């Protein structure tokens, strides 16, 4: 089922535009098509989530947008009108594996400054680093090594590292997937604050439908094999959002049901 009536048209020139995006992986059993003719557009400042079951190719799609993976023949992937042939300027990625993505030999602040090294003056770098750490509430842990921090804090460091380069776009690959429920909710709210404060465009991959709806302006459901965008939901919930009251709104519940049905097929209904 589709919720065509709800589809929102992104306003302004798109940050990303994909047309007929397909991807094949070479496997021992021959080529395997992961994504099939995916069309999508992301507008500036938008918060878009991509949901789908594990293995549907959400992360692959994100890596294509970030220029880490090449799209198949016949695909068009544009960032601000230019074909993506490597990580575009102003686009940064936040990975699920926060621990593996941080540099264990560097302190928190040295990790955050990584993307700024060789750019601007030392004073500028210090200030941007400081601001980023304050945004995620870790200014007091600047001198610690990452392994002294909890998982949630380590992910905050990675987000601060992304924010420090003042990105136009943050591509987030299941960033809260490995965190416990409470930490996850905290970080979701912090991310919304950051989004409001920076105006960055965020493309957020998750397998958690509620998380996607809670955070986003728009939710894209990837399903089928090879995967395509089967459903697009405009999330018309008021901001700022709040973990309890937002999730009690009839509109939230309606979206949640629509998303679940889109993922599981209409027979399952709500659970």
């Amino acid at each position, binding site marked *: 089922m589709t919720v065509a009536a709800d589809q929102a048209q992104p306003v302004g020139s798109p940050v990303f535009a994909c047309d007929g995006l397909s991807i094949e992986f070479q496997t021992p059993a021959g080529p395997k098509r992961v994504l099939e003719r995916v069309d999508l557009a992301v507008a500036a400042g938008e918060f878009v989530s991509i949901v789908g079951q594990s293995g549907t190719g959400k992360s692959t799609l994100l890596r294509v947008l*970030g*220029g*880490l993976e090449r799209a198949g023949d016949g695909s068009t992937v544009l960032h601000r009108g230019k074909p993506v042939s*490597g*990580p575009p*300027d102003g*686009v*940064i*990625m936040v*990975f699920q*594996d926060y621990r*593996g*993505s941080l*540099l*264990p*030999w*560097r302190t928190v602040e040295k990790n955050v400054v*990584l*993307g700024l*090294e*060789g750019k601007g003056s030392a004073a500028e770098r210090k200030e941007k680093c400081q601001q980023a750490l304050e945004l995620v509430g870790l200014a007091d842990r600047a001198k610690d*090594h990452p*392994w002294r921090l909890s998982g949630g804090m380590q992910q905050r460091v990675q987000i601060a590292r992304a924010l420090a*380069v003042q990105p136009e776009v943050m591509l987030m690959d299941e960033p809260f997937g490995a965190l416990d429920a409470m930490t996850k909710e905290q970080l979701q709210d912090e991310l919304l604050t950051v989004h409001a404060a920076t105006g960055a465009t965020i493309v957020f991959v998750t397998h958690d439908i509620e998380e996607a709806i809670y955070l986003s302006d728009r939710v894209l459901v990837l399903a089928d094999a090879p995967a395509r965008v089967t459903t697009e939901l405009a999330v018309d919930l008021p901001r700022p959002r709040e973990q309890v009251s937002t999730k009690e709104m009839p509109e939230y519940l309606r979206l949640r049901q629509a998303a679940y049905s889109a993922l599981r097929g209409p027979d399952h209904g709500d659970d």
Partner: protein
Amino acid sequence: MPFNVSGILFLIALLGVWQLAMSAGIFTSTFLPEPREIGSSIVDLTESGEMTSNLWHTVYVTLIGWALAGLIGLAIGLLVGLSLEAWRYSMASLEFFRALPGIAFVPVAVLLFGFSVKMELIVVTYVSVWPVLVNAVHGVRQVTPLHNDVARMMGMGRLARIRRFVIPTMAPFVAVGLQISLALSLALALVAEMVGNPTGVGQALIVAQNTLHPEEMFAYVVVIGLVGVLLNWGFLKLLDHGFPGTMASERQPL
């Protein structure tokens, strides 16, 4: 490095038992000296200046050879680890020469370079290069795909990636290689002095053996053993002081 007090006490106790057994006549040997004799021999050799000059020579060759081995091993290791081409062409030869026991080259080196310090240095360097080289190649390859993605997303070029990711990642491996090399350097300096270069502690050991002075042999063995411990200790201190972050990733709880 905290001193292992119980360990040292145990060692002293062992020496005491050895001394007692020999003084009481429970255990006698023509060629096994009493600890007391070894001690006075160390004092005699130091007073005559023999100990100092031999020791100085051996330690000097050990350190120079080790430093050369470190530089060469690091440079080749980086090259082979980073370049697929270099890897493809050199790995077979590297594996062959690495597996070949370096001591086998000592007579060859004597023939090629004569009884000289040069020969000694070449032998020490050649053997000590391998642990550094092999660990460096291995270390370079420990940069994770995820770290590569992080670097790419930040638009880093090759040099920036080597500086910010490759070198810090390989550092702990190279440090272990250097530590092994240091011990090897000392061992090979002794071997080279026994066989080829008529000076240093290695040669002094052979002379003491030929002139039937077991207490002198043991004096040199004890002192060179202490020097080995000291060199290792000094290396670890230097590492901790100069590069405090080197082992940081290793301190990470699993």
